[in-house]
């Protein structure tokens, strides 16, 4: 009789981690099924930031769409610009002058550092390390100042054109950039002190959200999330685009694909990006910055796909042209969208706090997820 009286059943309940939430990295909604503090199921609900980018592309001409690509992944706009102008150039068979390619590499890698700074800052913030977040954003400000020098804008850069670059770097840009590159490694050491070496941080991120390489490949995720699982695969080395085959850099990989590995790989990637930028500044040739492009851009009929190693994964644009001034169909392969697909599997059986850590570690931005 006593045993029956002791049979208290608990009930799972559904919690809406709604579009308004301090740590969902944007307007993302997750319907969690919780058993106490343990998450038993996660259902992704996306689309709160859907703006119809792909449809808009059909009503704009090719050059007009470049500012729209800034607003996809708004943390790393230069890389979005690059992927888009890359696909149009591929379809048109344009050859971009070498100097423009080097300029693109410099801006792209600088953008990668800025993106990873936001990543590590938000990661620390989601674990309540407020001060770490402030320090990283302080350093990101220095990078944004450089972008303002080049393009006039801090975030929505609109920095590349079909066939090259819109204008030369200002004369004070390269010296300022070199000065920043000297300062950054010192800043990274500061972050190592406050975040990477912290025992509480280790306890919160090690062995959390483990995804082995096979599962990640099955989901179609690329980029850092793949490298953190131990697979040495980087588009800049496997299928070198632009002038990446001219540079010498390493590919950092993780061990087991947990949150800590994803964090460490991105910290290392920032250091590698600094290497690449230094080499690019040294090797940049003189010359024109814009190819011979007709005034009105009308690619011939056909289709092309171009992808780059974006800051969050494989960022690809698929373009179908029917010979007119507007694209017939433009599809954006957004890495955050694919990564988010694996999120429910990663977070089953963990605590709510781990869920927040995992969501922060896969590096999503809702502009890209919802387009």
């Amino acid at each position, binding site marked *: 009789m006593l045993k029956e009286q002791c049979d208290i059943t608990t009930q799972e*309940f559904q*919690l809406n981690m709604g579009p308004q*939430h*301090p*740590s969902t990295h944007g307007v993302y909604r997750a319907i969690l099924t919780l058993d106490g*503090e343990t998450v038993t199921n996660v259902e992704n609900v996306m689309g709160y930031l859907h703006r119809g980018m792909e449809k808009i592309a059909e009503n704009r001409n090719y050059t007009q769409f470049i500012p729209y690509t800034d607003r996809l992944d708004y943390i790393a706009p230069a890389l979005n610009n690059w992927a888009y102008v890359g696909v149009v150039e591929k379809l048109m068979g344009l050859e971009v002058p070498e100097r423009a390619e080097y300029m693109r590499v410099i801006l792209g890698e600088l953008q990668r550092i800025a993106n990873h700074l936001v990543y590590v800052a938000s990661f*620390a*913030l*989601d*674990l*309540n*390390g*407020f*001060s*770490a977040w*402030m*320090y990283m954003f*302080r350093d990101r400000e220095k990078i944004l100042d450089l972008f303002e020098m080049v393009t006039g804008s801090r975030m929505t850069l609109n920095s590349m054109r079909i066939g090259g670059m819109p204008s030369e770097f200002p004369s004070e840009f390269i010296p300022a950039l070199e000065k920043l590159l000297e300062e950054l490694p010192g800043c990274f050491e500061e972050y190592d002190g*406050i*975040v990477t070496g*912290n025992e*509480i*941080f280790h*306890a*919160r991120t090690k062995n959390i959200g483990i995804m082995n390489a096979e599962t990640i490949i099955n989901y179609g995720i690329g980029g850092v999330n793949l490298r953190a699982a131990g697979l040495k695969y980087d588009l800049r080395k496997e299928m070198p685009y632009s002038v990446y085959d001219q540079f010498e850099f390493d590919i950092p990989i993780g061990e087991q694909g947990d949150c800590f590995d994803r964090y460490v790989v991105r910290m290392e990637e920032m250091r590698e990006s600094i290497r690449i930028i230094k080499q690019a500044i040294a090797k940049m040739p003189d010359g024109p910055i814009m190819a011979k492009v007709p005034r009105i851009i009308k690619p011939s009929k056909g289709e092309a796909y171009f992808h780059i190693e974006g800051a969050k994964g494989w960022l690809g644009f698929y373009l179908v042209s029917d010979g007119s001034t507007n694209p017939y169909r433009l599809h954006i392969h957004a890495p955050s969208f694919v990564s988010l697909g694996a999120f429910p599997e990663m977070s089953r059986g963990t*605590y*709510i*706090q*781990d*869920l*927040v850590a995992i969501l922060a570690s896969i590096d999503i931005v809702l502009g890209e997820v919802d387009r």
Partner: protein
Amino acid sequence: MENIFINLATMIRDFLAGLGLSPTAVDIVMVSIQAISILVFLLLNVLFLVYLERKVSAYIQQRLGPNRVGPRGFFQTTLDVIKLLGKEDIVPDCADKWLFRLAPIAIFIPTMMVFAVVPFGENMIAVDLNIGIFYFVAIASTTVMAFIMAGWGSNNKYSLLGGMRTVAQMISYEIPLVFSLLGVVMITGSLKMSEIVAAQQNVWFIVSQPLAFIIFFIAATAELNRAPFDLPEGEQEIVAGPYTEYSGMRFALFFLAEYANMVAMSIIIVTVFLGGWHGPFLPSWLWVFIKMYLVITLFMWLRWTFPRIRVDHLMSLNWKVLLPLAIINIVITGVVIKVIQWF
């Protein structure tokens, strides 16, 4: 300077006696004045502490903090409270009316009651109970109720999660808190606050009971719901925990209560481990004040440096690390006391 408050109290007492009141009436009035002055002391400190926290956090994060309202932003808290007073008082439809409304008030009561046994200086305790430290422990454990009232009464899953976490955390961490005090009580031989302070005349208890101090400090951080143990109001996961549904002045009360609890806990740490009012040159009550603020700054420093600890790590830290260490501390203290007695 030293006896300024005692002289003030004597003057008021003589004045009241001179008015022709009976001794009982004089006592009643004196006690009410003491209670009100403690309340005023507490509230003024809390107002200042909110400002201090914002400035300390700002300077740790390489920014300025409030610097517009008043000299160096000094009146920021006052104006924030005035602003919160003017906000709409939203009570959710399905919230439990009584629990929801009483929770912010209930959270202040234990805090104020603790101050009855705190020595603010030499001969400056409101009520020198001979179970002083025991009274403190007993009253401090009733703080949990306000959180459960807020968590349940809000009718919100986030609040409930936060409320449950608070209960688990606060009840669990009371045990090492109490056990670490036992070492101090064993050396003093009494539960009376004034005797605990008197026993520290030559050597503060932080020197003779360092392990107890560390355990007490960690447990106190958990009791106060301050980072890295601020799971109950874990902003990044459960929005604001038990406080999610509160707005306006009710929210302000919770906020102020956190700092009031911090003042209470700090002054207990000063009394029990840091020598109370002992100190050269300066008046005793000024020493208490200075030491209290040092402890508070230490709490703030910790908050803005560390990330948050996870729920199961919190529990395992308590039961597997702090409690065994506290018991070991008691054993060692007992052995050392006996050995010293033999010689």
